[in-house]
Every structure is written in C-alpha cells, then in structure tokens.
C-alpha cells in the first residue's frame, strides 16, 4: 500500500513529529514498503480469534488503595528543562 505525502504529514502531526521534506519523502517510501510486507496478515481468517494484548496477563491487577511515599518534588523536577517553583514550565498557551 503506497502512502501519500499528505498521509505521511497527517500521521506526523498525530505523532507530534515535525518532519523535514526529505524525511516525509523517505518515510513515504519506507513505510509503504513495510505496510506492503505486513499486508500478508490480511490473508488470515481471524474472525473468531480473540486478540492477545499481553502474553501472560489474564486480568487487570489491583493493589491496595494505601497511600505510600512517592518521589519528592525536588527529585521529580531535577531533570526539568524549565521550572517555576514546584511546577514544570511550558510556553504560554493563552494570550
């Protein structure tokens, strides 16, 4: 299946990736080749087959609803590219 440049740009926008024009071109070619290769799955009849999202996990696990210590703010913020007080700072989004 051949991906158009427009589709590549749409997927890149969903993935929050700002691609260069060269990358758009390259990915259109490479992703089309990979999608062609995975198309063989369409030949299998899987109508009645249950999907497997985890090989060994049968059910969601719940733990006791008990408060326990978590990372203190100074450790959580230690790697932040920008911070204000005990918050992560981001560019202004409302004018």
């Amino acid at each position: 299946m051949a991906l158009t440049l427009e589709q590549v740009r749409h997927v890149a926008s969903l993935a929050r990736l700002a691609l260069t024009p060269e990358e758009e071109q390259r990915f259109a070619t490479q992703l089309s080749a990979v999608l062609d290769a995975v198309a063989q799955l369409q030949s299998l009849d899987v109508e009645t087959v249950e999907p497997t999202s985890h090989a060994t996990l049968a059910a969601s696990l719940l733990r006791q609803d008990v408060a326990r210590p978590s990372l203190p703010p100074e450790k959580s913020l230690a790697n932040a590219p920008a911070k204000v007080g005990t918050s992560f700072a981001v560019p202004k989004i409302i004018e």
Partner: protein
Amino acid sequence: MQLTDLTMLELARKLASGEVSSVEATRASLERIAQVDPQVRAFLRVDAEGALAAAEASDQRRKAGAPASALDGVPVGLKDLFLTEGVETTAGSRVLEGFVPPFDATVVRLLKEAGLPLVGKLNLDEFAMGSSNESSAYFPTRNPWDLTRTPGGSSGGSAAAVAAREVFGALGTDTGGSIRQPAAFTNTVGLKPTYGRVSRYGVIAYASSLDQPGPMTRTVADAAALLQVLARHDPLDSTSASVETPDYSAALEEGVKGLRLGVPREYFAQGMDEEVEASIRAALREYERMGATLVDVSLPHTQYALATYYLIAPAEASSNLARYDGIRYGQRAKDARGLKELYSLTRERGFGPEVKRRIMLGTYALSAGYYDAYYLRAQKVRTLIREDFLRVFRDVDALLTPASPVAAFKLGEKVDDPLSMYLMDVYTLPCNLAGVPGLSVPCGFTKAGLPVGLQLLGRPFEEALLLRIARAFEREHEHFRRFAPLPAQGA
C-alpha cells in the same frame, strides 16, 4: 590467565576463598575497558568511582563473613536502558541526553543489594530499536570478533562488553530478540526470561507487552546465577509474575537424556546462511548423541510473526515514546513558538531515523480507520502464534532453532534498508509475541571465525530447563573458552 578471563562463578569462588578482592577484580575490569574499549566502543559511560566504592563495600562484607549473595563483588555492566540513580541514562538517544534518573530500576536495586559493582552503562540501539547498534545516537559498537562487524542489537553494547571481557556479565533487554541475537553474534549466552519473570520497573519502555530484561554472560552457569538475583515478583510492575523463584543452578548438570526436543520446520527456511545452518544441524545431532529425542514439529503461523511484530511493537512504542515531549526531562527545543511546536520540534531533533520510522508506523497502525485492519488484526494473529507454541509444548520439552539466519554482518551493510534489517529478527521475535522464554548458547563458528548461536525456546517459567539443556551442550563444546581476538590484558 588474566583476572578478566574468569567467568562470573570462577571469580565468585576466588572472592569467597579470599584469593582475589572485589576491588582487584573491579580495577581489572576498568583497566581492560581502558585498554580495549577505544576499539570496541561498548560503553557510553563508565562509573569507576561508583564501581570501586561498591567493590570496597563488598570486600568489607567478605571480611566480616557476610557476603550479600553468591555473586557479591562480581563487576557487571548495564545496557543504558536501565535507570540508575545519579548516573546519566540516555537509552542511546539524544532526547534523553543529560538525563540523570532520580531512582533505580528494580533490577538495578537487586544487583546493588546482591553486592555486584556496576561498572557502567552500555551502548544500544536508540530506545532498543534495532538489530545492529547502529541506530544509537552516539556511535556504533563493534563486534570484538571482527571490528568491521556489528555485535548485533539492541543489547549489542552488553554483548560486546562481555565478549571483550570488559565486564564479567551484563544485563540486556529483549523485545524481539535484542538479547539472543547479539549473544549469538558474540559467542556469549543470552537469556530472555518468560515475560513477567523479571521486573520492568525502571526499564525505559519500548514495547511494554514484549520487553523483558535478562542476563548476558559467557557461560550458562553464570546466566543461571545472574537470573537468580533478578527473578523476583515486583509489586511496582503490574505485569510482574507472582510465581516462586526456583533454584536455577540446582539441576543444571542433569543432561538431556530422555528429553523430547522439537525442531520446528518453519525455522529452517530459505534465507539462512549455509554455514549457520550447518552449525545448527551439527548441534542438533549432538543433542541426539547426548540422549535427547529430536521431534519434527510445526509452528504454522511463524511466517506471520515478523508482520505481527512490526505492527504491535511500533504501536506500543508510539504510545510509550509520547512522554518525550521536552516538558519533564531530557532535551527541549529552545526556539519553539507555542506548546505544540515545542513538542514537535523537540521530538524531531531528539529522535533518530529508526525511532521516527517506528513511531510513524505505530501511529499509523493505531489511527482511526486503520486500527482494526492493522493493530487489532495483529493482536489476533499474536493469539494464533502463542497457541502454536503452547500446542507443541504439550508434546516436547523445548524447541531448538537458529538464533539468527546469519552470523554478524558488516557495519553499514543493512542500515539503509529497514526491511532487510527487520528480517534479522525473524527467528527470535515469535518468542516475545508468545511470552515464552528463549536462550541463545554458542554452538560453533563460521570458517571466517564468526560465532553462531543455537536458540532454545521453552514453556513459560521453565527457564531452569532451558538452562539445563543449554548447559548439556556447553559441557561437551566449551566454546566460551575461545576468546575474541583482542589484545590480551597488559599487552
């Protein structure tokens, strides 16, 4: 005989008898790194100070007669995908350059509690995406057996460091073969445990339903000893299995007499290198000679595994890697106008081509209109692949297959052809989709002197049996005694 030539357990015995100290062993490891790593380039970071401090503490415990474990004092290395408190961790990516984790991964904590000095962080394909170490944002690691070739990936740094005897053992992670394929390329033992057997807490996620940490060592007995430290239920990882940890070394020497070993015909398909196939066939005959019964079996959905993997893994990766947005850690694009541009520019500059390719593929497979046709269908085929395994394991005790269709290939050979690179994982990734354990053990060499690995696949949580089967072969053919042709220590 140099100190770094010893296996983990040989060193452990010398530490126990007082013949050698952990500080001496750790210094020997650091000297070996200084000597050979400029060629091999396995390490992204060496933590000499941290390792020597841990070694001194270990020697104190030994003196007090209270070692923390059987491997107390044995220096090891870590793939740079494991969070290490206070030591930079990058996952081989620019996006995490400068990131210093505020806590340890559970397996790192377990290694520290068991007293193993952690010598440093080992190179990998960026976010563990790759089969050759060439997608690392920093530099490719070289195969100690031939410096013009790849050590495999993505745990290629770990494999190369063990094969070059820079460390006595290492940890890797395996999502589609990232422990077993580099082990096969470097004459080392690589074990991917059953999914859930070893905690993933603090291991930087690639594809959460497939990733599994495991030991990379020179011998099977070392792999058993290292797994003994790592295999624990972890309440911090909701997918960690709540099963008891057996004694992995207990039955190691019991041999294979009477075992039924399956040979899946789909794993001996076209495209396998002739010398690799000859080496694997010879290993199969050896098992027969040792008293095992070889059984011809079929895993009919094997041909669909590659396609299934390259939909499921990128889909999970596209979700997991959404966290690299320049807000909480790592690099941030400084010139972005507005929040959305900050995300997309940070990610554009931080990620390398292979990571972008997989994010794009995964985002596409999960997007509206394509979810059912790609992602959901792949999950259904995954069920068929898993059922294939569980069905044959009713008749046989384990499976014997090649670990890789070829021996180590040249650096640069496949880097521009993603599909041909993906084919390198064709024998290893069905095991991850099914969640069963897999191991690669050295089984011979090509005429050019490149290692070949035999892959063993087993029933869920039967790592002990896989180790025993691998050990039976290793006892007859001590390939681990043959060293990669690097300069000897002190040369």
